[in-house]
């Protein structure tokens, strides 16, 4: 503990920021300075987000392939995912994200237990890999007869010029099933984020809208940007069902192909992770007229707020009453644990460096139990996720973003729901906000330190200088942080726990944070010989002679009782 103890609890955010930057070569410091800002919720400063990662700084970020295959499309469990490339990419994305799946329909197969790859070798690098890809698709079809096959390009594929889309078209024609491909080579963007965008485009182009079966339920939504990590989507689904709202599809936690085909028939899109899926919401609105709102089911207060917003959208007294009833019930059930945990955790400090929405959403769970967030930042988000969508028109499109295809979408002449658009207009006039993400910073305190794509060096310094009580981050930082004696909650994988969404999930999270902050292990870090280095010459513990019992004497004293035992 000694070396990592708080050197100066009084160090201001600006001073800490300066300290962090000192370690870097000047060019790097200049670049990083734009990505580290001191918050002011009333005059939100610009964050240099979604810019290139600095080579050589230990980063949390992953690649475009990871964002596309790993995050957005990977969870669709009944289509076959084939990675076109050398073995590593397919191998590492095999069951490492906790997008849990529970196939329910007859004949619904969970292919997520299978990692499929073309296992590209030198020969294909030299002579091209299209032939092997075609053969792999054929073999996959022959063995599994899936409904659809999805192909993912990895770094070398783009460089050697394999046309994965042409192969997909050819095999689609040949096999008579849906086959589509993603140009999600790892180098395409500055982070996973590029992969999300590419995935959104592909799912929209190739799946959404294939099944026009209309909804019969009066209140239907899609939950977008919810990946069912640790069962979160199941919690949200259960809660909405209780309220009387039907989820058509969740993109893409525990979702099947048929649900996505039919997603465009919902009344409303409700977005959890704005960063990874706002493209889909925008495209669905343009083409089908479905409006979208931002929701957040992480944290009890936010969950209640989101439910009320959904109820307000549907303009039904019956639904609103039901929602109020459910909120009252759930809040009452949650109250004892929330109060118990708050009593122990109030005033403790957290810092969150994760994701494209989690570093925002999880602040609400910490707030629920009276904790403060000193510092937060995203791994791969954009300025709008920090500063709110109002900055969108001012974001400069750089060369890296231009690489990602913006697909041109128009209103569908037959299927565009002008009634939805009219309703949106009417509700907006009465003060209801759509397409409305305000970002993380407006909800954070003044002088909180906002750090985008935080580096290892910056995390280390933050801990040393500000000593937060807990950090929310990912697998790569977890044990670095814990070696410093600070618990770290993984907010990608939930440390294999959860769910943390909705009210039941909130209770799980409160208990988990309480456990982590108060677990006994940390109190043993300093051994007794270090605490009492001088010593007294006597052991601290000696057996109590007067308490020692001799079994035979006890028996003599009370033989009957012993027998009865």
């Amino acid at each position, binding site marked *: 503990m000694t070396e990592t103890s708080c050197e100066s609890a009084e160090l201001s955010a600006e001073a800490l920021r300066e300290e962090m930057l000192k370690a870097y070569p000047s060019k790097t410091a200049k670049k990083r300075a734009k990505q580290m800002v001191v918050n002011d919720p009333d005059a939100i400063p610009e964050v240099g987000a979604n810019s290139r990662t600095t080579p050589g700084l230990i980063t949390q*970020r992953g690649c475009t392939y990871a964002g596309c295959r790993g995050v957005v499309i990977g969870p669709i469990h009944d289509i076959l995912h084939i990675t076109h490339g050398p073995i590593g990419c397919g191998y590492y994305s095999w069951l*490492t994200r906790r997008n849990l799946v529970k196939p329910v329909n007859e004949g619904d*197969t969970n292919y997520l237990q299978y990692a499929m790859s073309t296992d590209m070798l030198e020969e294909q690098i030299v002579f091209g890999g299209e032939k092997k890809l075609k053969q792999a698709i054929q073999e996959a079809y022959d063995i599994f007869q899936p409904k659809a096959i999805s192909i993912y390009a990895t770094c070398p594929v783009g460089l050697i010029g394999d046309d994965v889309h042409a192969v997909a078209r050819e095999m689609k024609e040949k096999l008579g099933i849906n086959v589509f491909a993603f140009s999600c080579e*790892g*180098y395409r963007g500055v982070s996973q984020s590029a992969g999300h965008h590419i995935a959104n485009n592909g799912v929209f182009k190739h799946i959404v809208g294939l099944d026009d079966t209309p909804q019969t339920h009066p209140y239907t939504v899609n939950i977008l940007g919810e990946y069912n990590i640790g069962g979160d989507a199941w919690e949200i689904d259960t809660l909405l069902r209780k309220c009387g709202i039907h989820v058509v599809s969740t993109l893409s936690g525990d979702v099947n192909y048929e649900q996505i085909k039919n997603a465009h028939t919902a009344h409303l899109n409700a977005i959890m992770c704005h960063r990874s899926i706002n493209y889909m919401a925008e495209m669905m609105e343009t083409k089908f007229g479905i409006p979208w709102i931002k929701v957040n089911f992480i944290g009890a207060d936010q969950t209640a707020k989101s439910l009320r917003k959904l109820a307000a959208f549907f303009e039904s007294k019956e639904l609103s009453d039901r929602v109020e009833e459910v909120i009252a019930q759930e809040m009452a059930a949650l109250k004892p644990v929330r109060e118990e945990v708050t009593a122990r955790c109030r005033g403790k400090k957290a810092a969150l460096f994760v994701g494209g929405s989690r570093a925002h959403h999880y602040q609400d769970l910490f707030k629920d139990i009276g904790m403060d967030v000193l510092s937060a930042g995203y791994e791969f988000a954009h300025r709008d996720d920090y500063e709110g969508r109002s900055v969108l028109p001012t974001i400069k499109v750089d060369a890296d973003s231009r690489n990602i295809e913006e697909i041109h979408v128009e209103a569908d002449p037959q299927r565009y729901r002008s009634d939805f658009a009219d309703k949106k207009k009417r509700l907006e006039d009465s003060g209801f906000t759509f397409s409305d993400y305000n970002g993380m910073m407006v909800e954070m305190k003044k002088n909180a330190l906002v750090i985008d794509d935080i580096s290892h060096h910056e995390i280390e310094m933050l801990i040393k200088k500000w000593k937060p009580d807990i950090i929310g981050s990912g697998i790569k930082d977890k044990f670095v942080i814990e*070696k410093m004696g600070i618990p770290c909650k993984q907010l990608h994988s939930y440390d294999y726990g959860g769910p943390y969404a909705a009210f039941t999930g909130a209770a799980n999270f409160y208990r988990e944070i309480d456990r982590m902050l108060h677990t006994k292990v*940390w109190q043993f870090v300093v051994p007794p010989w270090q605490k009492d280095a001088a010593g007294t010459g006597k052991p601290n513990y000696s057996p109590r002679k007067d308490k020692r019992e001799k079994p035979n004497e006890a028996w003599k004293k009370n033989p009957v009782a012993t027998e009865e035992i």
Partner: protein
Amino acid sequence: MLDATTTEIKERSALRINPAKTCQPIGAMYAALGIHGCMPHSHGSQGCCAYHRSHLTRHFKEPVVATTSSFTEGASVFGGLANLTQALNNIFTTYNPEVVAVHTTCLSEVIGDDIPMIIKKTKEEGKIPEGKHVIHANTPSFVGSHLTGFSAMTEAMVKYLAESTGTPKNQVNLVPGYVDPADIREIKRIAAEMGVKTVTFPDTSDVLDCPQTGVYEMYPKGGVTVEELKSTGDSIASIALGHWASHAAAELLETKFNVPASLLELPIGVSATDEYVDALRQTAGVEVPASLVQERGRLLDVMSDMAQYVYKKRVAVFGDPDHVIALTRFLVELDMDPVFVVTGSHGNYFEERIRQILEKQCPTAKVKAQADLFELHQWIKQEPVDLLIGNSYGKFMSRAEDNLPFVRFGFPILDRMGHRYFSMLGYTGGIRLIEKITDALFDKRDRECAEEWSELVY
């Protein structure tokens, strides 16, 4: 669980399903962590580095730091020179390592980046501080496997750092291979027990099994130092454990500096450990101490005590070739029948060597290199086995096949913790392996046998 796996086998030539290997760079990264004060650097797009760090962290539950050149489209078109130069400057300025160990990825290999040239240029620009080192290995993901990547980086340690002063040093080089820190501890302990002074490289003990002290050390006390690596050219001999992971480095020391190499297999079970102990005895000219004889005797005692429970049990084994070869030898020593033996890695030698080991015990065994777990599972469906041994990915096959007894062994183990602290190498490690095997068999019997057969004593 794995419901789509068919019993019927259809020939595949292009589609890999559930691989039993991964790519070269992760091996290079792991090897580099076994140098004291080293920053592994992944020259490619940043996803590789993120995947490798995550995967190694899940296996070790320890900090795994590494840097990346973070290629974007521009670097992929124009080459990675600027990225690597900038990275090296940032690494030395910010993280101050003794060594940066650069490995390539499929991306930088396809582009054709010339790493030695870039290192030279960066040095000339003064961005590599005096006395610091940058080494490199070429590890394209479309060649070999994580084992060959490990081997390439281990070889690079010799290539870049080993020297010969002309004065021999009374020490033996130990190249332990792609094993866990606990295994390296055990290998070193046996040598120390025999009074042999060793230089072990790469050595991830005290790097990836560090204590909780409340103080984070970016470069923990473990790992082979640059000085020690330099001295390997003066050692009296090298002992390298494992054909895939270790032999190349020892052979290079022999070619370059005439340090004679003993090329052994991993010391798992009786005879492979005997060979290791005897190699130490012969090369260093020492006696085998009574303490090791005792250990060996205890292993034999456990083997005889437990023989009836393992005799002729049908075993399916998968994993990395060095591990699988040594394990298969031990299974034969235990009178077990390794009926299916596979690795995902390449190399004809694997099949040849396994067949040789199984020639008498199990001549009809199915043996395959460049295989995958889908195929292994199909074999098991066709001809059931009593026991499955392999890395964590085996757990799904085990569940799919009526909770087939399953022992976790090798890399990676993502869902249990023992491998991090308790070695399966050496005589004592052999006892642990028998414990694991019999526990797995007994647990199934205790859970599932008819009540009248539920017995207290085994």
